[in-house]
């Protein structure tokens, strides 16, 4: 029996070394360990062995069975490992640097700047409003305290339409009156201050060149409540502009005349490029004229239904205007204003996202 076992052991070792795939290994396992395999055969032969040798022979067979089983498992592991290794080695190393994916779309730069500003204003509790591009004379001028003979109403500057009394809005301020009427009730009944910004496309009759466009974007904002003051206006403008430019900006106010504000201001920010020392982009003045603003004119508040004739200062407020087109030019270093409306995809497709 001993001899038989060592003979089988030798055979197993030989054959085990010869197999190199899972399938042949399984065959080998069946040849030794299945019901009709060599080990079972040995067990059957055990019956013929005299009793005094049975125990020893049984132990030998069991030890052999265990050894075969263990060596088989070990070999199985090894073969799996080798096979995986082969798989890995045969796999291609991929080239991430190849152009991947679809062509990317792009946002118009005005959209990007407008969204950024809208987010800032929304975070400060402002409603974002929209308004038509065709407006009537009343909303664009009269309701803004612009008298009938004012130069702003000249045909040379403003696009009047063939429809009666209508024009393409020449400034976003044209929405002020409508917004005051829209939110006036909430202000008076619930004490909810009017805080709104209204971006929009504006039109002025200008010859187009690198610095002038007849179609451009502005964003206007108003805030109205009881006791809104010049001091609040300066605070707000400074806070808002610091947010827009992502740094602490220094602002200064100068008197500026606009019929719909009183007092009216031109707001300058200290030049962000030279820090106020003077450079070509601020024309050596150290300051950049950025946005007109002011306390909303009592007449405008009256026309907007905010204040009565009897108490023209019950509510007060401020208004400001930002040139979105100009901000976009500053932000992206666009030198030619025509880039915005010409629709050249070689330019516009660069504005992939924020």
């Amino acid at each position: 029996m001993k001899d038989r076992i060592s003979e089988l052991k030798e055979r197993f070792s030989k054959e085990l070394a010869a197999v190199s795939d899972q399938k042949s290994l399984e065959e080998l396992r069946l040849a030794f360990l299945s019901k009709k395999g060599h080990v079972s055969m040995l067990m059957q032969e055990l019956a013929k062995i005299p009793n005094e040798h049975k125990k020893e022979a049984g132990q030998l067979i069991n030890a052999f069975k265990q050894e075969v089983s263990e060596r088989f498992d070990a070999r199985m592991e090894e073969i799996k490992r080798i096979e995986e290794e082969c798989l890995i080695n045969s796999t291609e190393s991929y080239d991430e640097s190849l152009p991947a994916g679809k062509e990317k779309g792009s946002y118009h730069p005005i959209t990007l700047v407008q969204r950024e500003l809208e987010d800032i204003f929304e975070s400060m509790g402002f409603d974002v409003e929209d308004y038509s591009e065709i407006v009537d004379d009343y909303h664009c001028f009269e309701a803004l305290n612009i008298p009938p003979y004012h130069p702003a109403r000249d045909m040379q500057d403003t696009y009047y339409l063939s429809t009666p009394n209508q024009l393409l809005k020449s400034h976003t301020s044209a929405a002020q009156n409508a917004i005051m009427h829209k939110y006036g009730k909430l202000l008076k009944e619930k004490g909810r201050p009017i805080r709104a910004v209204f971006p929009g496309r504006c039109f002025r009759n200008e010859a187009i060149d690198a610095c002038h466009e007849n179609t451009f974007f502005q964003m206007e904002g108003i805030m109205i409540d009881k006791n809104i003051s010049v001091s609040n206006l300066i605070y707000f403008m400074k806070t808002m502009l610091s947010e827009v430019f992502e740094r602490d900006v220094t602002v200064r106010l100068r008197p500026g005349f606009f019929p719909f504000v009183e007092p009216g201001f031109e707001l300058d920010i200290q030049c962000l490029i030279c820090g106020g020392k003077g450079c070509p982009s601020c024309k050596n003045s150290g300051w950049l004229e950025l946005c007109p603003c002011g306390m909303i004119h009592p007449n405008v508040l009256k026309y907007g239904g905010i204040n009565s004739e009897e108490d023209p200062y019950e509510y007060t407020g401020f208004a400001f205007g930002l040139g979105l087109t100009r901000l976009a030019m500053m932000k992206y270093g666009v030198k030619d204003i025509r880039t915005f409306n010409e629709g050249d995809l070689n330019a516009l497709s660069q504005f992939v996202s924020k």
Partner: protein
Amino acid sequence: MFVSMNWIKDFVDLDGFDMEQLIQRFTLSTAEVEGIEYKGKDVDNVVVGEIISCEDHPDSDHLHVLKVDAGSEVFDVVCGAPNARAGIKTAFAKVDGNVCGMKIKPAKLRGIMSYGMCCSAKELGISDDHSGIMELDGSLANGTDIKEIYPIDDVIFEVDNKSLTNRPDLWGHYGIAREFAALVDRPLKPLPVAENPYTGEDTVDVTIRNEDKCYRYSAVRVENITEHVSSNVMQVRLYYCGSRPINLLADITNYIMLELGQPMHAFNGDKVEKIVVSTPDETIRFTTLDGNEHEITTDTLMIYNDKTPVGIAGIMGGLDSEITDDTNSLVLESANFDAVSIRKSASRMALRTDASARYEKTLDPEMTMLAVKRFLKLLFDADSGCKCVSKITDIYVKKYPKIEVPFNKQFIDRYTGIDISSDRIEKTLQSLGFGVWRNGDDFKATVPTWRATKDVSMQADIVEEITRIYGYDNFEIKTTYEPLLPARKSNRKVNENHTRDLLVKNYGLHEVHSRIWCDPDDLRNLGLAPEDNVRLLGSSEEKGTGILRTSMMQCLLPLVYKNRSFSDTFGIFEIGRVVCGTNEDGTANEKRMCAAVLYSKEKSEKSLYMEGVDIVNTLISELKHREVNYVKTDPGHAWQHPKNTAKILTGDTCLGIINTIHPATLAKIAKNCALVCIEIDMDVLDEVLSCDLEFEEPSRFPAVDYDLSLVVPEGIRYENMQECWKKKDIPELANVKVIDIYDSKDTKSITMRFSFVLSDRTLTGEEVQARIDSIIDKLAQKNVTLRV
């Protein structure tokens, strides 16, 4: 406008102040200063020099060799001026002196040494005259510094005219001096004037016919004028402030305009007898003193000498009655005209003058008389022998009402948000010329006449006066406080942003901006023309310009055309406005649209069209959780394809149009390309109610799938087949999927996968088969058969 600090200092003592800082404060408190120029800073060591001998240069046909007596010493000088001659006194720049930004050095000119330089007025920067060297008064002592004779040193700053639009009082030095006086808190000196010494009864005969256009007319007649040259000071100041010295009388009127802001006109006394201010009865032609002829319409106010026109009121005098260098009598006009009338006339004639620019700002009529008296003072100073031969005629048609504004400190505090003392309020207003009545914290301010024509009328205006002098830089800044209430995002904005994100991020489209009107040339390239619509006034009907777009495509198709070399496949979109004719009330029917165009030279038109359908479906599904259906429609525009133009509907609401392009237009854009247009009305989309998301608990039992391959006859659309497996007929039908579409020349076949599921058990084969059979039966009625 240019402002001379020397001139300002005539009226306010600015000793001890840094000029640059003062001008900076002027910017912050009054009006924007665009630039500062330091005159005379490069003129140094220039003295009165007498040419004691003048000989021709031996080696030159134009140079002279001079001996110049500069007081302490005589210099040899080589000079090329044509007027150099012995006996005259001139401006002489000594060696080591400076002129025109260069240092004078001894130099050899054609072999002869020259020590110094004789200067023209232009070289000293006080005139444009470069015809020869200056010829100075013979009585001046040789060696006198030229700056003692001419006020060469000055600080000139330029104020942005636009920032003065609402300040008629700042169009002259005196008004600006008042601002400086308020800023430095020193008194403003009175303007020196002279009374009319004439005691007789004669007047200047003045008639005003159009009292709505002429508010005041003051006039005086002066004779026996023998002096014709204005003083050095006047000439230099005029020159520094952008004017040009002409002759004494013209110079004084210009000087007063720059000083007071009151335009004046001096008529030749021989040519004007009886002044009539009137519009012409019919259109006439008139030659102004610049020699140009103008067409004068019947609404242009004119000045007549009886019946002969002698000037365009407030704009420019006439050539025939012009003051010349030897005029010895004049009729002086100091008038106030209606601002709007002057502005309209000036812009109609394209003749904007310094005078009209001032009248347009609504000048204070009180000034006319003051200006006449100032004129007399300056004239008497220059020519003591002249004689006034009339009383000052003064016809005052329209006097502005006196404006009083009551207010209190509490109001100022509330409006400014800071605490400005009552004493300070009082002092500021007084320094600006306001009359102030005060009782503790209660005030009543009387607006000075020069601010009362339109500028200051109410409390908010008073706030501006106080705060701008107080200085905005000195403001303590404060936040607002208000109740905490929710802010809502507008649906409109959300939808627009979402649409943009989807088109850019999911579909790789490029956002563009275009104009609201059509470009007829762009459209012509595509064989198209603008459609009849609302148009811009003043645009050319003939050329077809200025017509507003009826569809976004009128702008986007030309953009695709322009970008066709950008890429073989691309898409653009814009959210913008169109105008679809007029509403019932005649106003323009403006609509807010989102339009996209897909372009490809690689893809088939059909697959591009299905991409378009996918975009629309996804958009409506994401924004509204709604399904879209399409109904073919007749083309509404020339570029739309007659067969593949469809309305985009959700429920019964039409949201827009999707279409391919008419072959005629397509051929103009590019060879072998495909285009798909989508146009969606965003206002209509905003109004569509969005469906709620409906959640259905998924079954825990597996679904049973059943595939059918169907042959679809021509004319049957997928939506027709969908009617055969309605959810209400087969509730167990959980999902239907198109697995494959196969098109060949004569057959169209489609493979579908139907998934059936029950919530409490798995369906049996028989149950599934029964449902499939019912679907097959219904399909058969539509001639859709199983593929064999």
